[in-house]
């Protein structure tokens, strides 16, 4: 029924099956809307957050999805600025994921703040002493950039591109995409960093407080590095998930290899910096503030196993696998490592948001626990459902994976790899087989 809107040369499931797939997600979406309505209309007492736990599951989720969505800016930067052409195979998917993550995060922030009608206050009367101001400005601007980057993907739809106005607009917009990629990279660098810096400047929370490097605490740089490491891994995992669900090959295995290597390279840098930072914190920063660092790990829930997991299990271990070309060839190890990287970023954001606030800092403080209310969980799941629905619709009606059509044709893998490596994204394609080669053959 809707086949005229489906891209040519690819197969999609029937419309009834597709609608059936969307049904449970729509249900989850509706429950989330109701929970959000309760929080906005009746107040934040529907949540289990209080003065002590001002950052609950929502901020944890925000920080996590923003880190996982970093694949959009990092992939765009590598493709359009550093001309890593291989990434054109996943750039659309990265943009969709980025858009879902950032719009979801902004939406949940809006609920968390609880006064959406006064959202403009943050721009008109910002607190210039807060890193959150920088985050707010960067997040908003970057969301606008992501929406602009999403437009060409939609306009590439088989029916929409038949309208000359849309065709020409998409073409011209695509030509100027490097500008948006550069702006996106700039904004992402600062808001990813400032989200980390936010915790590093908490003098009253010695578990998170860090010394400054220049004008930023070290957590600023750790957040940037960790997001850049997790982004490519999350793209790998989502692509694999879509491949499994649709039972199709969507990208060549060399693309996974490239993303794995990229993620591994960033991750090893992050592990190195994180280790140095932790050693400085244990030996200098924390004792300097009157807190022996290992006291923070004496509570049963948050033992040193968390630190070990963060740096070794979810950091060094997957980084070494992803950096080894031999181990990367093993799909279980490749995707297993990508999964560990994503778990690592979640754990890190959990530590920064929940553990930081849970640990007592004053002598009369007690270790407090927090469990999210159903409204908080429903709002969290709302973002998941919204993401699945938007991704599913985009996948069905547009070309998220340009290599899908080629792989559906069953072309020779070696030839395909060759041409993919030789193609650039902007249409100015190059073939290594040049006139020079022909002339050499003649002579």
């Amino acid at each position, binding site marked *: 029924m809707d*086949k*005229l809107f*489906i891209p*040519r*040369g*690819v*197969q999609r499931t029937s419309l009834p099956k597709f609608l059936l797939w969307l049904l449970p997600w729509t249900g989850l979406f509706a429950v989330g809307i109701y929970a959000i309505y309760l929080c906005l209309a009746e107040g934040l007492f529907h949540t289990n957050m209080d003065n002590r736990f001002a950052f609950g599951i929502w901020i944890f989720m925000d920080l996590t999805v923003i880190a996982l969505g970093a694949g959009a800016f990092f992939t765009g930067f590598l493709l359009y600025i550093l001309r890593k052409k291989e990434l054109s195979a996943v750039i659309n998917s990265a943009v969709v994921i980025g858009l879902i993550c950032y719009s979801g995060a902004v939406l949940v922030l809006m609920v968390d703040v609880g006064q959406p009608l006064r959202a403009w206050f943050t*721009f*008109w*009367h910002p607190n*210039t002493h807060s890193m959150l101001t920088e985050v707010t*400005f960067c997040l908003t*601007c970057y969301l*606008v*950039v992501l929406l*602009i980057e999403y437009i060409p993907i939609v306009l*590439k739809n088989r029916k929409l*591109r038949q309208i*000359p*106005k849309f*065709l*020409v*607009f998409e*073409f*011209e*917009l695509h*030509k*100027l995409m490097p*500008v*948006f990629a550069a*702006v996106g990279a*700039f*904004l992402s660098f600062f808001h990813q960093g400032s989200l980390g810096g936010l915790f590093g400047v908490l003098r009253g929370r010695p578990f998170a407080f860090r010394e400054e490097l220049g004008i930023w605490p070290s957590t600023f740089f750790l957040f940037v590095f960790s997001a850049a490491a997790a982004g490519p891994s999350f793209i790998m995992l989502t692509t694999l998930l879509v491949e499994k669900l649709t039972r199709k090959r969507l990208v060549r295995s060399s693309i996974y290899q490239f993303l794995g290597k990229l993620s591994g390279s960033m991750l090893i840098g992050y592990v190195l910096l994180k280790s140095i930072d932790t050693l400085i914190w244990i030996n200098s920063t924390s004792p300097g503030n009157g807190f022996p660092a290992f006291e923070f790990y004496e509570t049963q829930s948050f033992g040193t196993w968390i630190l070990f997991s963060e740096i070794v299990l979810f950091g060094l271990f997957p980084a070494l696998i992803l950096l080894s070309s031999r181990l990367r060839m093993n799909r279980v190890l490749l995707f297993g490592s990508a999964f560990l990287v994503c778990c690592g970023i979640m754990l890190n954001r959990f530590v920064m948001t929940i553990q930081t606030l849970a640990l007592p800092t004053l002598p009369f403080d007690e270790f407090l626990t927090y469990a999210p209310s159903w409204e908080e969980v429903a709002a969290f799941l709302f973002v998941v459902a919204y993401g699945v629905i938007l991704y599913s619709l985009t996948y069905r009606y547009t*070309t998220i994976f*340009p290599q899908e*059509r*080629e792989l*559906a*044709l*069953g*072309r020779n893998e070696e*030839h*395909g790899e*060759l*041409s*993919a490596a*030789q*193609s650039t994204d902007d*249409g100015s*394609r*190059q*073939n290594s*087989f*040049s*006139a020079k*080669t*022909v*002339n050499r*053959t*003649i002579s």
Partner: protein
Amino acid sequence: MIPWVYEFHWTAFHIIFLTVFGTVGLIVATTMLMVFNRSKTAKQTGRVEAIQWHSDFHDLPSGMRTCRHEFSGDVQHRTCNNEFRCESCSVHLAFVSMKGEPVSPLLLQNNVLGFSMPHDRYYHRGHAWVKKDPDGNCLVGLDDFGTRLVGTIESMELPEIGKKIHLNGIGWTIHTLGVKLRILSPLEGEVIAHGTEKDRWLMKIRPSDPQNATVHLLRETEIRPWIMREMERLQFSFATSGAGITLADGGELIPDFHKHFPNADWDGVLGQMFLEA
């Protein structure tokens, strides 16, 4: 944060912060304005067809962009990245300069896998043929492969006499099997006559550049391998368009084969075969 608004101070930090975000906003807004302006200019200067072909070609899988020198056996594998514009392709020109011996007429057959593909014509990848007329103009029609693909044509729209058509732009439009199909123009030039059914050609074109008018078109020994690839493509396009798996039997394409694929997505099949993205 905005000057003259409560809590704004003329300090270095406020000014830097405002300048940075102002610059970002300005860059985004200016770029979008440029996009709108360039889109408008492209439409006004009649570049829509060129953009459509550029966009379509870019989206074609590499298997549909096979270089003609792969057909002729000059190279084992090569993908065209020049929008099939051989006249501006350095590799093609280098190959042409090394060709010496003319092809023996014995090697050339008009019947290619059951399709009538006369060798006195040149063929465009979009299944239009071109034949040079003694008066220097060119005759244009739909090749046998394309004719069988479209089946019984419901209606056809040819460009008006006197209209200039662009290479790889819209040559003419066909309505068939409920699909509006554009056939790519194999030449750049002016339409000077329409053919009749008896003529077996559709248009007579006065080429803009008579000397190089047919450089990019397939010919002679390139035709058979190209048609073989097209048959292969046809099978794959059926497989991805709801008709299920088809197997090659080595035979010829039967007339009215459409009737045997009632569930096929004809817009998808024909679009793919006539190089629409």
